[in-house]
């Protein structure tokens, strides 16, 4: 305290004035409230009394449609159609629990649904809540008529029209698009969703859920004594979700799904110039629309426990031995490092001996005299056994890593597997496990411990086609909101470079062209006039099994056209047998429909 500045009495006066000013301000605020009360109770009182006498205001939600996913040309991949949903409005349900349960019992018997489920749903929410609890989706018109008929006895039970996902075919691009389902308990705990909200659970629906979901609107309506709406008091329009433009090409996706029909496996079609994924198929697929409406437990378990694993996205979540496709990596490593030359020749008699071990060629009796190019074209194992030993296991592993194997592609989907490239150097560091030359031999034909995903192969083949650029596979071009324009976009991203001499690139591409066009193992993919280049692979799942047993996975990795490649097509058929016999014809079908116009023109012109 400092009495020197101001005499105490003056100071008190200044302070008093401030207190009086604050008190005056508070009293003015009281007067404003009295004024508002006068307005509400005296001036408008009659109107409000009227409103309270027949307080039959009801609140009805208007569900927002989920955003639509388009392909690269603007064709819809998924759409919405109106569907009927049975909902409870907690605040309008009878307060008396017994009478409420009687009403719910009536609903259960009318619609043949579980009474316990209804009671549980009603018990889980606050009885003051106005947000609808969506208890049953996908009602038939008959169901709707039944509920409407009993409407008066069923306060708080309503039928909503809710836009629901509609798919062009039941399994179309199932793994990429993903499915939409009611928020589960874990998601509810995060506090972002309300019970009964539809949430993207896999694929792009999950990745972009924040954008795809709109905001529900609602309306307050006045109803008469019989519950019939008289007028709308207030309405808020729902805001639809954002529109997503994917990189997919619907025509190619359809063709790829058709081509793979009857096989378990995967197809990736990629644009090597940008990393755009034009098609992505994993088979068997699940029926996307099965999950949209309330799915019963048994049906769900059937899908989850299916031994064919339809929920698995084989493109990124399954790992396979690359088989002979991997020979491209061995050839690239050897040529670049100088340990291999195009002039290297060997005589293939079908067997290769290393110590006590014998490694066989896939062709009994062997290929005779082969050089590097013939070895690629004929997919001669014996040549690559020797080549692999000359190049060395660690060099092969290093090049494989450069080509993106053993690392995530970074694709915007959850649960991507990394694959595996065994490293001799790392292994030598440990005492217990040492690297055997036999492992290098196995590795040089893409067997042994080498594991890759189809998406990694697509990225690798794109790099071969475009001269070494490793693109991050792109699935989504942009997300647009109706009024706000682009709210999210992916400009594309390069996540690696492979530096090889131009001569090596040219040799590799030329050899791959010969695989298809000069009587190689990929001849079944040949389309005259279209310079397709590719490599077959047969991944053995049981050591030394015979291909015709149907145990082996068939690979075909292709790009076309040879000069200025536009697409890369990767086919994997599980248990399909030989790559050249099974996978190559599938790739041919896909390439044929991609280049339909070109192929037709060639046929007409001869």
């Amino acid at each position, binding site marked *: *305290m*400092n009495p020197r500045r101001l005499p105490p009495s003056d100071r008190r006066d200044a302070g008093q004035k401030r207190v009086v000013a*604050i008190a005056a301000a508070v009293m003015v605020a009281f007067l404003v*409230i009295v004024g508002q009360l006068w307005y509400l109770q005296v001036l*408008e009182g009659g*109107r409000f009394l009227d409103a309270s006498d027949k*307080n039959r205001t009801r609140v009805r939600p208007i569900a927002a449609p989920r955003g639509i996913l388009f392909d690269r040309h603007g064709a819809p991949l998924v759409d919405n159609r109106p569907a009927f949903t049975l909902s409870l409005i907690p605040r309008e349900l009878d307060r008396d629990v017994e009478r409420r349960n009687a009403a719910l019992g009536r609903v259960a018997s009318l619609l043949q649904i579980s009474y316990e489920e209804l009671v549980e749903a009603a018990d889980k929410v*606050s009885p003051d809540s106005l947000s609808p609890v969506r208890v049953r989706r996908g009602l038939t018109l008959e169901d709707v008529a039944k509920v409407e008929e009993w409407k008066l006895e069923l306060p708080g039970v309503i039928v909503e029209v809710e836009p629901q996902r509609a798919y062009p075919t039941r399994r179309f691009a199932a793994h990429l698009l993903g499915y939409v389902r009611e928020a589960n308990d874990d998601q509810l705990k995060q506090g972002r969703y309300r019970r009964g909200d539809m949430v993207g659970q896999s694929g792009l629906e999950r990745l972009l859920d924040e954008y795809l979901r709109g905001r529900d609107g609602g309306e307050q309506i006045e109803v008469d004594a019989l519950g019939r709406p008289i007028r709308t008091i207030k309405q808020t329009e729902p805001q639809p979700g954002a529109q997503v433009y994917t990189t997919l090409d619907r025509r190619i996706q359809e063709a790829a799904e058709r081509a793979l029909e009857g096989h378990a496996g995967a197809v990736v079609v990629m644009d090597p110039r940008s990393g755009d994924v034009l098609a992505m198929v994993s088979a068997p697929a699940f029926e996307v629309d099965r999950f949209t409406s309330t799915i019963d437990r048994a049906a769900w378990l059937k899908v989850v426990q299916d031994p064919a694993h339809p929920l698995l996205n084989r493109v990124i979540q399954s790992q396979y031995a690359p088989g002979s496709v991997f020979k491209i990596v061995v050839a690239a490593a050897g040529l670049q490092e100088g340990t291999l030359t195009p002039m290297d020749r060997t005589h293939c008699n079908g067997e290769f001996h290393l110590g006590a071990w014998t490694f066989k060629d896939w062709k009994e009796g062997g290929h005779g005299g082969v050089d590097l190019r013939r070895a690629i074209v004929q997919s001669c194992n014996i040549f690559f056994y020797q080549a692999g030993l000359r190049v060395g296991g660690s060099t092969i592993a290093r090049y494989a890593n450069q080509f993106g194997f053993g690392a995530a592609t970074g694709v915007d989907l959850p649960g991507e597997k990394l694959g595996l490239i065994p490293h001799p150097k790392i292994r030598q560091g440990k005492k217990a496990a040492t690297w055997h030359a036999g492992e290098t031999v196995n590795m040089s034909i893409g067997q042994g411990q080498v594991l890759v995903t189809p998406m990694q192969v697509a990225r690798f083949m794109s790099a071969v086609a475009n001269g070494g650029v490793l693109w991050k596979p792109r699935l989504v071009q942009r997300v647009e909101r109706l009024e706000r324009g682009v709210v999210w976009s992916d400009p594309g991203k390069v996540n690696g470079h492979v530096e090889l001499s131009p001569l090596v690139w040219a040799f590799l591409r030329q050899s791959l062209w010969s695989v298809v066009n000069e009587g190689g193992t990929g001849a079944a993919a040949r389309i005259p006039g279209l310079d397709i280049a590719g490599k077959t692979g047969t991944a053995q799942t049981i050591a030394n099994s015979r291909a015709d047993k149907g145990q082996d996975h068939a690979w075909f990795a292709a790009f076309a056209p040879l000069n200025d490649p536009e697409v890369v097509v990767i086919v994997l058929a599980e248990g399909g047998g030989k790559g050249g016999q099974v996978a190559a014809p599938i790739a041919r079908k896909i390439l044929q429909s991609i280049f339909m116009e070109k192929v037709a023109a060639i046929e007409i012109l001869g």
Partner: protein
Amino acid sequence: MMIDRRLLQNVDWSLLAGATVLAGLSATTLACLHPGRAGSAVALRQVAWFGIGLVALAVVASIDYQKLVRVAPILYVLAVLAVASVFVVGRSVSGARRWIGVGPFSVQPSELFKLAFILTVVWFLTSRWAQPVTSGTVAWLFPLAALPAGLIVKQPDLGTALLIFPVLIVLLVGAGIGARLLSAMGAVALAAAPVAWLALKDYQRERILVYLDPFRDPLGSAYNVIQAKIAIGSGQLLGKGVAGATQSRLAFLPERHTDFIFAVFAEMWGFVGCLVLLAAYALVLLRGFDIAASAREPVGRLVALGATTLIASQVLVNVGMVTGLLPVVGIPLPLMSYGGSSMVVSLMALGLLLSVRMRQFQ
């Protein structure tokens, strides 16, 4: 505890009378909400809380407020720790963690924090009373308010957190802040708003927009406001009485025991009843301001001013919200809304006022 007889002579009986009238109105309103025994049970519990609150009031009044202000920083630290402890040991009621269990009771630490906050700000402002309030003073006070406000927002309890600021500003005014500095603070707040806005996430912005414009969320607060307006308006001049108050009794009103109890009262007793209720509040508040104005020294003045402002801002924000003048934020109506923490803390604030009054003539 020894209480000087001279102190007892100076008890402000009209202040206590006003508070008792309000608590009585609260108990009757609660009893009328439910027919029969359920109603009287709720009312009795409210009366019991009032009794406990009166004891707390007597305890606070018997302590010299100067001593309380001297230990204010310790109270502040304890209160902030209690608020933070809600996240560790808190009880969750409909998604908000605001309560901690103490024996059979649930205590809301953010309520107690308000009192500690007032005392701390007074301690701070009076410790440099001789100097004029400068921007440096404000800069020191800001984190003192912002840290607990952030914690309380996280609970989430936006209403209580926002209450901190009118109390802070009134105390600054009472301490003699210059008009220029006050308007500069307003300008800074306005300038900071867009920056804070941009830092928020989409869904957080959405929540704020709903606060500002309840009609954005037609299934939520907009409905409550309309129903509250119907309840208040339909009370007309003289009210519908207990039996006729259909809005309240038929459960159209949300939160009718707590935040929206004013609407229930207004429906039952009409404009005239509301005038009586507001007059009781005005009496309490004017007594509080009188105590502040006639205080002998700055500490007492600011304590009284802070306690009065705490009650005043809660009354104004709550009634303003229920009558549709302000956006919906959850704040109880002091002495009226059902709930122990709010009742006890409101009475403790009145205890501070009495403490200042009783020592005024020493």
